[in-house]
């Protein structure tokens, strides 16, 4: 029953094969940004058929998830969508905490929300910048990378690591942030709109950019729902769906924000939706930072899910025992023998984890619902009929991250 690759790359029926030619695009190509491959059947410069071939970066993350415990797996989750690492951690621990039934402290909820929105800006900066870069507008890419650099600094100040922070822990965070970090976020929020405005003025009404993106890769609304697309890709097609609003988590029920939507569903509207979402994220961060509650960042130590602090491990027998219980591989957490699906609104779309717990501290099955994987399946239907130069425009607007695509 399984088809061979040769059958798949054969030209569509009814089309004379004589003048069609096949172009191999990737897996190493500057415009794919990551390792993914496309086999394009072309009629002159028009794409007649596109067959994506993925798996070049497959590294068995989900198998590893069945062998690493809930806290250890956070380092792997970080590397899925490495453009917005903390957003993956938030999704992972949202599922694990739903499985274990842990209610976070208010301060932790707000800090995680700030991080979720910082990561949304982080991701959209790259995706809008790279989309423009592929179409020849290099300046916007540099301007947006200045902002990304500041978010890297925020990651570093909070967790000690820039690229893969591994900042979250089950039931809380690695450590609390200090006042200096809060001031850094305040100054980021204050200065972001200026740089953002420069980019918006460079691109939003730029005739070359608009002509390269408007009307390209149109995804109608019904098709967007039917193909399970989510996040900015679906919202650009008019699907008013946002997990933050529909199935609220963290501090989102208490915050005021808009769900940004467009109706056209082409590359240009996906770009615009991402740009507007950055401003909404800034608004959310502003609200969170002003309301940031005091208090502990981890859940109570007596709940037996968080590691006790160093002093109590060294100075008290209870602390030492609890540390031992959580670290030893035959003890760890007591999980229910049940399974749960919980999703968050990651920058790229709905990022969920389906976790099957078997009573031990290691997930029996840790399924990721990766938005990149589902969006890349859309690619053949978006590109057919467009020019070969539009391939990079559509790829850029879908924001495919191969590490998340292949896991």
């Amino acid at each position: 029953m399984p088809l061979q690759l040769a059958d798949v790359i054969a030209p569509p029926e009814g089309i004379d094969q004589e003048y069609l030619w096949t172009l191999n695009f990737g897996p190493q190509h500057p415009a794919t940004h990551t390792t993914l491959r496309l086999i394009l059947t072309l009629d002159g410069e028009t794409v007649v058929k596109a067959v994506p071939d993925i798996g070049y970066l497959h590294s068995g993350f989900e198998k590893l998830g069945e062998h690493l415990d809930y806290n250890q797996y956070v380092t792997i989750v970080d590397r899925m969508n490495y453009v917005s690492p903390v957003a993956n951690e938030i999704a992972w621990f949202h599922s694990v905490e739903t499985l274990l039934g842990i209610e976070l402290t208010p301060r932790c909820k707000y800090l995680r929300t700030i991080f979720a929105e910082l990561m949304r800006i982080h991701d959209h900066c790259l995706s809008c910048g790279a989309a423009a870069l592929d179409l020849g507008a290099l300046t916007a890419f540099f301007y947006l990378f200045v902002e990304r650099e500041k978010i890297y600094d925020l990651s570093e100040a909070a967790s000690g690591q820039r690229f893969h922070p591994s900042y979250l822990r089950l039931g809380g965070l690695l450590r609390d942030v200090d006042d200096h970090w809060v001031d850094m976020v305040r100054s980021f929020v204050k200065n972001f709109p200026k740089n953002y405005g420069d980019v918006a003025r460079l691109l939003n009404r730029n005739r070359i950019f608009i002509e390269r993106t408007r009307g390209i890769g149109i995804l109608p609304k019904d098709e967007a729902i039917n193909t399970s697309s989510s996040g900015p890709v679906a919202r650009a097609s008019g699907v008013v769906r946002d997990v933050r609003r529909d199935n609220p988590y963290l501090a989102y029920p208490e915050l005021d924000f808009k769900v940004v939507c467009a109706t056209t569903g082409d590359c240009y509207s996906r770009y615009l939706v991402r740009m507007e979402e950055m401003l909404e994220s800034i608004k959310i961060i502003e609200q969170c930072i002003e309301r940031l509650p005091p208090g502990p960042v981890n859940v109570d130590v007596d709940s037996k899910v968080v590691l006790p602090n160093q002093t109590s491990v060294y100075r008290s027998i209870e602390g030492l025992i609890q540390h031992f219980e959580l670290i030893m591989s035959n003890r760890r957490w007591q999980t229910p023998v049940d399974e749960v699906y919980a999703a968050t609104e990651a920058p790229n779309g709905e990022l969920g984890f389906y976790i099957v717990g078997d009573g031990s501290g290691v997930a029996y099955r840790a399924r990721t619902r990766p938005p990149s994987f589902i969006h890349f399946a859309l690619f053949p239907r978006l590109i057919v009929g467009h020019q070969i130069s539009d391939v990079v425009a559509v790829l850029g607007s879908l924001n495919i991250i191969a590490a998340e695509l292949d896991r």
Partner: protein
Amino acid sequence: MTHDEVLKLLRDRFGADAITPSQFRDNQRVTIPAEYVLAVLETLKRDAGFDFLSDLSAADYLHYPNARDRFGVWYVLANTITGMRLVVKTWVNDPDPTLPSVYALWNGADWMEREVYDMYGIVFEGHPDLRRVLMPDEYTAFPLRKDYPMRGKGERHNFAVITRAES
């Protein structure tokens, strides 16, 4: 439509024996026999407003406590208007784990079903292009099954080393 109304709709149409509802935390779950999958999902899509397939995947319950069947496959549905979710779960077994494809209902199932086939060897009948998606085409094992070791079975030796001149 509330969750109880959805359950009533399913019970009326397929009989109370076929539908096993359960709840864990905020997840509403319905377990159904494999032969009803397509009909139940079609009913849920057409009549209960679950127009969005959030997730489709599987797990191998080989060493799971008190498990009677080998593979569990779940469909996480969502309603894009109300935000309501429902997990539909079914079981399939060796030697030929087979399920009907839901590609006709949701085109988004395309790659998700291919991934399940790739990782567990569950065949989705009626899928238009059921090939391996992540592993190479020549691969013979199903790596996410529980009887497959984490460090592999030495498949690397089966793949010839290609020199630069041959490539």
